[in-house]
């Protein structure tokens, strides 16, 4: 049976993005790091980030960027999470007429491409909540 491989370890679980919360400045970051990127403190706790947020910016990528083997076009944007974090993310919607500022979005672990042995490579992505 071909398996599933996340595009990178430590970014997400099937249910949520893995972020960090700084115990010194209280700010959240993504991806999780051992040092807070905002204040430099090492008092950082790994946390599950909210799986819903709102759309802050978006576009569609129409030509394959360097190193990318999946399909185009694909949606690309910024989703704001309740933790006060804006995440750069792939979007599961590339029809821009279906996206709007402040739209509710939900995390979706989505396939990127298939490797020669059939392994599905998956990544984090956000889709409009009503489609999720």
């Amino acid at each position, binding site marked *: 049976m071909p398996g599933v491989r996340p595009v990178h370890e430590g970014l997400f679980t099937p249910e949520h993005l893995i972020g960090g919360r700084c115990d010194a400045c209280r700010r959240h970051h993504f991806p999780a790091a051992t040092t807070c990127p905002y204040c430099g403190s090492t008092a950082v706790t790994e946390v599950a980030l909210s799986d819903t947020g709102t759309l802050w910016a978006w576009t569609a990528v129409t030509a394959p*960027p360097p190193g990318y083997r999946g399909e185009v076009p694909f949606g690309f944007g910024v989703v704001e999470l309740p933790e006060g974090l804006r995440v750069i993310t792939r979007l599961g919607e590339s029809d821009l007429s279906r996206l709007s500022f402040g739209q509710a979005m939900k995390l979706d672990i989505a396939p*990127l491409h298939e490797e020669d042995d059939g392994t599905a490579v998956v990544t984090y992505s956000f889709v409009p909540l009503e489609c999720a």
Partner: protein
Amino acid sequence: MTGVAIVGIGMHPFGRFEDKTVTEMGVEAVRAALGDAGDPEFQAAFCGTAYSGVAAGHKVLGALGRTGTPIVDVEAGCASGGAALMLAAGAIRAGQYDCALVFGIEKMPKGIIRSSFFEPWREEAGLAATPAYFALRAQRLMRESGVTKDLLAQVVVKNRRQGVHNPDAMFRAEVTADEVLASRLVCEPLHLWMLCSPNEGAAAVVLRAAPARDGGGPGVTLVAATLRSHLPGSALHEGTPLSGLADDADIPAPTTLAATAAYEEAGLGPADLDVVECQDTDAARELLSYEELGLCPQGESGEWIAEGVTALGGRLPVNPSGGLLSKGEPLGASALGQVVELTRQLRGGAGPRQVDGARTALGHTVGRGANASVVLLQR
């Protein structure tokens, strides 16, 4: 304190030159700059480049038989030439050298720039889509500053019209807004002609210690050269992080950090400027630069382009050279290409694209890193 004079400038045109190596282009620009300066002895050389490999500056000076001095190769993304200039100017001000050569060279691959900056997984996930980041910034600018797609097209129309008169530019034909909007959509709202073309070229300047500025000299003085990196927080700054803070209103952009430092260093402000060359990687980036450099108040860059403030003949001409949208962008050479253009402007030798009576000029680049550089020149 010692002042710094620009005593020589040289260019290899920006474009595509299949039969030339990056070293050969550098040789032409350096030879021209040294000739313009009266062939002085220099005590150090600084070379800005991002894609030319190991000891690229040494190869250029080796080909000219001018090695033996320190040669420092500097990489700072789109601001590489600005970084080289800052190092050279600082060393002259400190009394370390009397004369220094600064040059930038590049021969870029075609298409979307592949950058070792992105980890392989980020490329695999489609998150190394450089024009998409530009598009997201453009969309936010449109929302926050009343910029429309037609105004983005007007930036291209302006710069391409100005580039017609620049023999060093890659594109020298005027375009209409309709043609810009009919070019291929790359990433909404950005169409192909709203994006600069990575290309090839070289630029060089010769710096020399001069008595501190007295305002009356005939030459061109470098009054500030600053380089700044980003502060963390903004999701869309040129360091292209994977996340940022929702509460980023008080975090200055790297361009603003570099500009503030440059204005302070020179004792000048945006109101003193007569001509500007700024980073127009894409049409929205030029407008954002107006705001981040403090040329116009936040949110008014759209009005500025609509009213022709920054066109030749306007109150503050921006990118009289045609900008990167006309010249293309050879990363390591682009900042020094601006300095060459601005020196020509201040010398009064810019021909049909001359800004009448220009005395104070600003050059600006920003890109990967993030790195932002600002240069202030006066005559």
